[in-house]
């Protein structure tokens, strides 16, 4: 049994945390970088006192749970992980226990946070809410076990297409700029949903805060910077997607202008939700000219981030370090009142130059281990 747990830990748990280091780091950075521990305790007491907020917290945790379940179920579809179907040979109670172990390991960040705030909630007298939250905390991973067991029992999911999808595939060719969006929807929907959800939340939050004090437009620029940083993980996915799944793009006889136009369309589409939210919740005192500048800035940041990936192959650790530096540089530029338009034009200019200069020299570096000659060769 221990060897089974060891294999599951190595193939699923470690892999999950390795691939989601950036996501978890960003969540931790925003959760504990902005809010102090005492703010979390205060927030917890509000949440435990309000059934609505408690339900909302449950929804957020459920989203994280779906992310982990989706990850494991996707891995079970991979040929490289097909050996995991041998788990069917293990007696059910042991197998279920193994899945529960996997799900608990993936659920750990939520569990630790809930235990942390639950402890204070308990001592502030919100005992019923804390008990309900703990029951929720214990029950949710069980649904993961059911989801994995379902996949294990039905290893080949039905891939027949609906009449609508077949009709659409026959009627329309997918444009190049839509490839990455479709990739996110099909392979990383939770990451897409969380990223867009978070950055739209930032936009709405800033729009609500802006009229309450003597803030100026720098507040929105800081928001744009935050949104850009959050999108660095999506840009890493774009970089990987093009190199690993569409290497033929580099064999296509397309002018650099055409390529950049495709990226431009993609980035506009990606930032459309944030721009729509800004327009929808635009506070009094903000003019349309600034909305344009802000939109240019967030789109330009995507060019800048993607250009940096083309310039240098980043592993997640380096990306995080660079992200930190970039955030602080941006932060100081904004605080020293560098106009948003200048920041936007700077992002566009440097981003386009990086893309143009490094497009053909960019390479997805295989890990050094993969270069070693295998014994059979």
């Amino acid at each position: 049994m221990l060897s089974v747990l060891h294999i599951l830990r190595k193939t699923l748990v470690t892999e999950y945390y390795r691939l989601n280091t950036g996501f978890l780091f960003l969540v931790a950075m925003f959760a504990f970088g902005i809010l102090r521990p005492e703010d979390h305790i205060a927030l917890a007491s509000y949440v435990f006192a309000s059934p609505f907020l408690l339900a909302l917290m449950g929804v957020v945790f459920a989203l994280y749970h779906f992310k982990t379940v989706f990850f494991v179920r996707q891995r079970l579809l991979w040929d490289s992980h097909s050996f995991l179907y041998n788990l069917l040979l293990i007696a059910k109670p042991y197998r279920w226990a193994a899945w529960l172990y996997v799900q608990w390991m993936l659920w750990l960040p939520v569990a630790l946070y809930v235990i942390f705030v639950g402890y204070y909630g308990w001592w502030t007298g919100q005992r019923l809410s804390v008990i309900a939250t703990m029951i929720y905390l214990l029950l949710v991973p069980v649904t993961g076990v059911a989801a994995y067991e379902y996949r294990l029992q039905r290893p080949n999911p039905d891939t027949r297409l609906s009449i609508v999808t077949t009709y659409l595939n026959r009627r329309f060719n997918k444009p190049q700029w839509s490839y990455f969006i479709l990739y996110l929807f099909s392979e990383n929907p939770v990451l897409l949903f969380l990223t867009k959800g978070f950055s739209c939340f930032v936009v709405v939050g800033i729009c609500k805060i802006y009229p309450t004090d003597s803030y100026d437009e720098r507040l929105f620029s800081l928001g744009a910077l935050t949104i850009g940083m959050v999108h660095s993980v999506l840009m890493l996915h774009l970089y990987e997607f093009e190199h690993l799944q569409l290497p033929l793009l580099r064999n296509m006889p397309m002018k650099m202008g055409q390529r950049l136009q495709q990226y431009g369309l993609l980035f506009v589409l990606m930032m459309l939700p944030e721009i729509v939210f800004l327009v929808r919740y635009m506070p009094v005192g903000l003019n349309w000219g600034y909305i344009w500048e802000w939109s240019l800035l967030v789109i330009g940041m995507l060019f800048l981030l993607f250009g940096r990936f083309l310039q240098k192959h980043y592993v997640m650790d380096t990306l995080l370090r660079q992200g930190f530096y970039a955030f602080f540089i941006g932060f100081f530029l904004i605080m020293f009142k560098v106009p948003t338009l200048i920041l936007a034009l700077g992002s566009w200019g440097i981003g386009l130059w990086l893309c143009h200069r490094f497009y053909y020299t960019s390479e997805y570096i295989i890990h050094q281990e993969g270069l070693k000659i295998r014994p059979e060769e």
Partner: protein
Amino acid sequence: MLQITNLHKSYGGHLVLQVPSLFLKEGIHWFKGANGSGKTTFFRTLAGMLPFEGEIKMGTWDIRKNPIDYRLHINYGEAEPDYPEFLTANDLIQFVAKAKKASQKQVDELIELLGIEPFLYQPSGTYSSGMLKKTSLAVAFLGQPKVIILDEPLITIDDATVQKVYELVQRYHAQGVTFLLSSHQDFRFEALPIKQLFEVKDKKITELPPPRGENDRH
């Protein structure tokens, strides 16, 4: 046709291929080599898909100075194609056809010849390895290329499709297209007149004597 000078290809500082000078004349060229010897890296580099040090020219077109002309005339068929699973064969073929300026007539012919029609509108995530291979072969023949690189063109496809590939190579070769092929199996030499045979080994590319039967023909 293809002039390669001082080519150095490294991955993360680790040299994997070094070609001081190589001239590939018009014709069909066969590259042999064990797994991991660098064939695919060489092919992908020639196709403009990987960065490298050195010089590669097709006639007067330099891969760096004339990136559009060069890429318009060099096509590449992957050994083990792996496309985004939501794209259909039709999406891929139409996209490449547009970029490579292929006519709809040519697209229809390739789809019919390689038997792609039954799964043309299915997402590639549902394809078998043979279906993926057929799609990549169709993509490799689109447009008016001067050079077509086919990495392991015969793996994972059935015998009937192998014959179709021979047919296509012969037809395009008759029109003056140069082929760079790699294969673990011997090609049927009565079907394909191999002009030069190379071995990719120890980070080098060495020319070998022409395969048996070739000397009899020329």
